């Protein structure tokens, strides 16, 4: 797990991307506790997303994309559960079936020469132009990360862009009989 002679001799599994969804009490410092645990113990955060999901109970959902062996990710889950305001930790890869999506806002530099190509590509990817008073060309694209990646790659080949991404959010798509 770490790289010393104290390293675990057991067969380690391959490094994989994992999406963890963490329900927490929405109280001051809770995000710092979560990310502090990652940096303090040397784990990776590829992306992180947090927002309140239930107003009446003050609960937020944090979606963390990380990568590591299954041993490391299982340790991450257990360390997260030790944090007092954490309700639950679910590894969506272990759940088997989940839906993920992210949003990107893309500022596209459009000129007369590339205009047509840009609009065609945006149409193809169903990237929506956001109207605002400055008449700037900002597009919004939502969907799975790979789709956003492909769009960015292709648009980059046409023109210069600036981009902001939310990082994925995800939810289990296994049918539940009873709501928690």
């Amino acid at each position: 797990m770490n790289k010393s002679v104290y390293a675990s001799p057991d067969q380690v599994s391959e490094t994989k991307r994992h999406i963890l969804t963490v329900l927490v009490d929405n109280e001051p410092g809770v995000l710092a506790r979560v990310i502090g645990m990652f940096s303090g113990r040397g784990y990776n955060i590829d992306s992180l997303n947090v927002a309140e999901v239930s107003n009446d109970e003050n609960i937020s959902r944090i979606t963390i994309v990380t990568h590591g062996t299954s041993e490391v990710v299982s340790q991450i889950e257990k360390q997260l559960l030790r944090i007092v305001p954490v309700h639950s930790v679910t590894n969506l890869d272990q759940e088997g079936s989940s839906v993920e999506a992210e949003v990107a806002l893309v500022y596209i530099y459009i000129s007369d020469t590339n205009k047509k190509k840009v609009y065609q590509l945006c149409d193809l990817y169903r990237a929506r132009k956001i109207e605002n008073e400055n008449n700037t060309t900002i597009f919004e694209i939502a969907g799975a990360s790979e789709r956003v990646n492909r769009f960015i790659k292709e648009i980059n080949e046409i023109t210069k862009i600036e981009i902001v991404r939310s990082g994925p959010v995800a939810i289990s798509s296994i049918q539940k009989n009873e709501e928690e």
Partner: protein
Amino acid sequence: MNNEITGAEIVLKSLAEQGVEVVFGYPGGAVLPIYDTLFKQNSIKHVLVRQEGGAIHAAEGYARSTGKTGVVLVTSGPGATNVVTGLTDAMMDSVPVVCITGQVPTHLIGSDAFQECDTTGITRPCTKHNYLVKDVNKLSSVFHEAFTIAQNGRPGPVLIDIPKDVQFAKGSYEEKNKIIIPSHRLFEPSPDFEKSKIHEAVELIAKAKKPIFYIGGGCINSGPKASRLVREFINMVGSPVTMTLMGLGVVGSSDKNSLGMLGMHGMYEANMAMHECDVMINIGARFDDRVTGRLDAFSPNSKKIHIDIDESNINKTINVDVPIIGDVKQVVEKMISIWKDKKYKIDTDSLKLWWDKINKWKEIDCLNYKNEGKQIKPQYAVQRLYELTKNTKTFVTTEVGQHQMWAAQFYKFEEPNRWLTSGGLGTMGYGFPAAIGAQVGHPDALVVDIAGDASILMNIQEMSTAVQYRLPVKIFILNNEYMGMVRQWQELLHGGRYSESYTDSLPDFVKLAESYKAVGLRAKTTDELDDVITQMIETKNTVIADIWVTKEENCFPMIQSGSAHNEMMLSKDQKQDKKSAEKGKILV
């Protein structure tokens, strides 16, 4: 609205309702309202330390010797930063402590005010949980939750940061039993926890041919009943048992099943038995690197059972076969009842062969040392201390280094909660304030801090505290004028280049004691040793006993870093092979 009291009064009322008898602290600007309220009441005693670092170690010593929660009260800024080491220490060794810090008034937070620091930010990774309370009406519920969290599950330190305006503000007090703590904020194993796993574990033990129990500090944290149950179960099985540094006392040293401590400076027979066992039963220990040595050679042929209250300890460094999450006393009680119900009995022939093997290892006599003339060997000093105090109710604390290991090896503990040492963090300067805390909790007991000459200087200012409160703590310094453990590693791994490990200009410890109006004693030869120890015990005052020991003694046996349990070094003539020595050098 008529029942409103100030935040400071809520603090004291909460402490009183939680049954707190004593607070270790140091006043300052941001906690003056609390100190003012403290002044006006008589139920809670305050012990004034001489540096905040002393307060938190004293609270740890109090907590670990009494089983209660230690309480610390310090001011903002430097007051808070000075307790960081102790909080980390309590976190590593799972000690229940509640630390109250003052904070600058709410409207000044973030303005770099005088004595302001981001206390909750700084202490987040070294506490189990912490709070910044900005609303006086939440103060009592925060306190009651904080005490519960500190004690619940795997115990640990909890910090409450209170801005000065909140201490002055008026609000309502809520009683402990009116507070409902949501279950996700606590550790609550389900009542029928891990039933099948426990059955599997007991069956595995019953079928073992070469079992060993590996006992850790979790058994002590689970309370005295846990130690009784663990002893009972081990006796039923007839298995050998070894304890970690933190677990000493769970099973008495004189118990026929006890092999003593294991690990880096543990007993040869204990480490060999760990290496060769077929079933290992880890109860409340966490496979620390001081215990396991090289992981890829750790107990290669055993099935491992791991009982721990903290799930994150399972498969953290060592993969185990049967993990059981739960409180030691509940799990072991269940194990005993299963063992009885099923009328399990371990195969006596195999067990006899196993004990024969262990007894052969014992013949190596790994703690063997030779007295040379009239010079006092540090091991001999601890042995004499043990012999002369064994019939008294004695608490032993230590600092960190060679003296700590000699104390663990040569002082024999028969009871839990009598041995207080900084195991996880290895904090030099822990022992003396911890001894003060233990003495406060046990005014009539004998409390001895076995110290080194370097460690004791890290919190020597607490002499003033000990004398002020007439705490007859005994400081037993094994004085070799070196940071002995650093010197030992430099000798073994760095070609004998003793870089900065010799302490020049040490104080005259006898005069130092006298300057605090305590008693100073000194033993330079073996002839003087027993008299000095006896005099130390009989003195009803704080004592420093300065024991001059041989300067270059090494602490053996030793598993050098990067080596395995079966590669113990018994003396310095026995060199580690070069390759693992090179690898080991980079480790701590």
